[in-house]
């Protein structure tokens, strides 16, 4: 009797482990499939000319240079606004703010900001930046809109990275005659920097791939030349992909997949940089 019971438990355990292992494999499969499919379909289209030429023949031929440049500008613009603001907010929350209802309110706001659908950000950006502040449909408006969307990600990641720095470092620095700000600048920030960078890049990566927030605020259907100022509208990879997939008749499939591949490489490249930073920092960390 007793022996059979043990065997049963053993089998149940084996089955359980197999099931969760299966679940793990199932989550990876679609990603691999998606990747393989897009590489297979899109790789033939990607060439030096595809990356560096303007579109021609109603975007049915030529390259996607303006979309690549536009996405680069938008990501840069988003970084300029969201990174300093996000890190400053995180420093305040992690290092200065007392735990009271104000900080709780700020935290709730940040969490909720992260949950808002991106198209709502787009509409908000249209109302505030494009129309009210009269920035027009421009890189500036789109970057600001993307910044608002990216801020919660950067703040949360940076706050977590700051809090991970051991409290004892702060105590020692203060006890040696440091001010709070000296302690943050000389000890806490340098130690938290890799974690902050990782969060920043992951936030920007999301911004680079978004379509809805730039739809009404800065993205153009087609422009014959590259944007010359932050107040110009711009083409961008995700929106361009949307346009050529749905709005242009007789669009060669290869160009669509080629564009998708470039967008994925752009985003995953940023992801790779974040991973490398995290990995190298972990190897060098002294605590």
């Amino acid at each position, binding site marked *: 009797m007793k022996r059979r019971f043990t065997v049963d438990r053993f089998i149940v355990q084996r089955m359980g482990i197999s099931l969760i292992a299966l679940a793990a494999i199932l989550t990876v499969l679609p990603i691999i499939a998606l990747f393989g499919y897009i590489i297979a379909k899109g790789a033939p289209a990607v060439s030096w000319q595809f990356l560096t030429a303007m579109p021609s023949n109603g975007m049915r031929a030529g390259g996607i240079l303006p979309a690549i440049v536009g996405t680069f500008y938008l990501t840069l613009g988003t970084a300029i606004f969201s990174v300093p603001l996000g890190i400053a907010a995180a420093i305040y929350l992690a290092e200065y703010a007392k735990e009271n209802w104000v900080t709780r309110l700020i935290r709730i706001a940040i969490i909720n900001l992260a949950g808002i659908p991106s198209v709502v950000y787009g509409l908000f950006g249209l109302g505030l930046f494009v129309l009210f502040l009269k920035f027009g449909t421009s890189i500036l408006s789109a970057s600001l809109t993307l910044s608002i969307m990216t801020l919660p990600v950067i703040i949360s990641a940076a706050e977590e990275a700051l809090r991970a720095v051991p409290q004892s470092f702060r105590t020692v*620095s203060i*006890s040696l*005659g*440091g001010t709070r700000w000296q302690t943050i600048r000389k000890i806490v920030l340098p130690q938290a920097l890799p974690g902050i960078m990782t969060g920043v890049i992951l936030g920007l990566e999301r911004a680079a791939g978004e379509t809805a927030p730039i739809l009404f605020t800065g993205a153009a259907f087609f422009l014959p030349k590259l944007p010359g100022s932050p107040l110009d509208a711009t083409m961008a990879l995700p929106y361009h992909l949307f346009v050529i997939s749905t709005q242009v008749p007789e669009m060669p499939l290869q160009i669509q997949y080629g564009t998708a591949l470039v967008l994925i490489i752009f985003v995953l490249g940023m992801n790779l940089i974040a991973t490398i930073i995290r990995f190298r920092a972990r190897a060098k960390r002294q605590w």
Partner: protein
Amino acid sequence: MATNKIIVENLSLQYSDGTESLRDISLQIPVNAITVLFGPAGGGKSSLLRCLNRLNDLTEVQTISGKILLDGENILDPKTDVIALRRRVGMVFARPVVLPMSIRQNLTYGLELAGEKHKSKLEEAVERSLKLAALWDEVKDRLEDPAIALSGGQQQRLCLARVLANQPEVILLDEPTSGLDPISTGKVETALQGLKKNFTIILVPHSVQQAARAADYAAFFLQGELVEWAEGKEIFTHPKEKRTEDYVEGRFG
């Protein structure tokens, strides 16, 4: 009786979570000597230490009353320059906390916070403080190594040297040898005996034995109360209070 560096008058302290840590403490701390604060855990020794350099400012303190006079000036006064105070009153913690930088940078950190930029002065401080902490011979050839690479005992002496580099007047030590082996403990204790000629030292020991070995003066703390204080020889051989006697002889704690 020697001159007093610090005079504590009727000091009481209560934390925000309701725990009372110090009750009406009055105590004099003589200059150029080792004063030992000893007693069972939770007696208020560390709380008193953290008042002496206002490190308690970082904690949630409900009420604090009384006076702490350092060279006659009340450091609990809200107008006190706490940054300057903490340079004058340095602290070594129970666990050696080396900052995530090189040995040299650990030592120059305090001076650089104060704005010292002259290389020769920083160099001089590194050598002087390491010699005072009896660490110079062991690390002089590898000052650029990360401080975390040192052994536990070396790290704690580095922490002591880091405090000394600031040229303080008072050194607070909160169970500095609690994590160290007997040999490292001996080195720290020897270093302290050498230091007392030039500094006022306040030590929370990690055992009664260490208290007896190190104390020029000793104060016995029990549940937030100062039971008695006297010269070290006196308190460990002829304690006046029964409670002190019981503790010293190992009947509790």
